[in-house]
């Protein structure tokens, strides 16, 4: 079952999840549980998190994203954060939150294309 707040779709070996405009704590935590189940079930190699719509990422949400990436890596999938808004990127950079170890892409399309690389 997919959590209604954050849909996860499967494209071959890739899972794409579209995060909504507002990341509230409960939704993000439910999503992390749901995603780990889906990675386990599908043996996905890549998870693309579409954050194009996300308007605010504070330190709590940043930690959740890093935990999701770490969890996915343990399950054998890499996570690509796609479409971060420039206003969010500036704010995170000023907060000193560089999200080390998390892969990024300009958009979902870029993330999917890059997957086939060397």
């Amino acid at each position, binding site marked *: 079952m997919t959590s209604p707040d954050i849909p996860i779709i499967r494209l071959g070996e890739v899972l794409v999840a579209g995060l909504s405009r507002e990341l509230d704590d409960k939704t993000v935590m439910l999503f992390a549980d749901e995603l780990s189940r889906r990675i386990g079930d599908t043996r996905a190699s890549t998870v693309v998190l579409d954050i194009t719509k996300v308007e605010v990422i504070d330190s709590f949400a940043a930690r959740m994203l890093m935990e999701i990436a770490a969890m996915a890596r343990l399950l054998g999938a890499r996570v690509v954060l796609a479409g*971060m808004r420039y206003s969010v*990127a500036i704010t995170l950079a000023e907060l000193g939150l560089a999200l080390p170890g998390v892969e*990024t*892409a*300009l*958009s979902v399309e870029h993330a999917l294309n*890059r997957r086939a690389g060397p």
Partner: protein
Amino acid sequence: MPGDRQAAREAVMRAIAGNRGRIASTWVDTQLARATPAIGGEELGEEVQAIISCLLEGLGRDLPDDRVATGHAPLREAVADLSRRWARLGASPTAIATAVFSLKPAILGCMAPQAEEALLVGRLIDAAALVSFQTYVDSREEIIQRQNRQLLEISTPVVHLWHRVLAVPLIGTLDSARAQIVMESLLQAIQDHQAAVAIIDITGVPTVDTVVAQHLMQTVTATRLMGADCVLSGISPRIAQMVAQLGIDLSEITTRSSLADALTEAMRLVQEEGRTERTPAG
């Protein structure tokens, strides 16, 4: 409020309320005699009537004498309005404050004031004059800041250099405000153009301090978070030395000595991504 001061305030309120017309016309006459600025008597009359009404309301509130002008918002706004209007017409801050001050004789002239009452009117109007002065300074400051911002935006153009490659050639001294604007306009351009690489060229920048270096590093971090790459070019030996002396670690940042080298690197990065993009999945 002690009894005698309360009594003084009531006396002043009665005097103002009972002589609105006279206070207004005395004040208008004073301004017309000074002939600065070029405002008609009718308009002056409206301005002063508004201030007198707000003054009365403000005196009715539980505020210390010297806080009535700042604390009673309608009065503060009425005085600020006058100040802004006169400033637009070219009046100096001194002329504006003098005009507000001249409310003092206008009010005291229509009563036989006790010492306490005269002091009260003094405190009241002095504070109002300060508001007019402050408004003048603030609006000047606002204009200067707006012009500064415009100048900054003009002086930091983001150039679309190549397919999916952007560059900002920086020229002149970078301060924190300018570095901030460079960062914002570059990152917005990356989003708008879906650029893969951003080049920051600092060939024309004579010095770099800690704050500016920090902004540059933040720009690089933010670029990466968006999924693009950042190349810093044009670091002169002098700047390299400064950066080293400041103890700033630029090792995480891709640097090239010239803009041409940076462009070569950028094209390589774009090509690399393009090649992987054309490869069929699987």
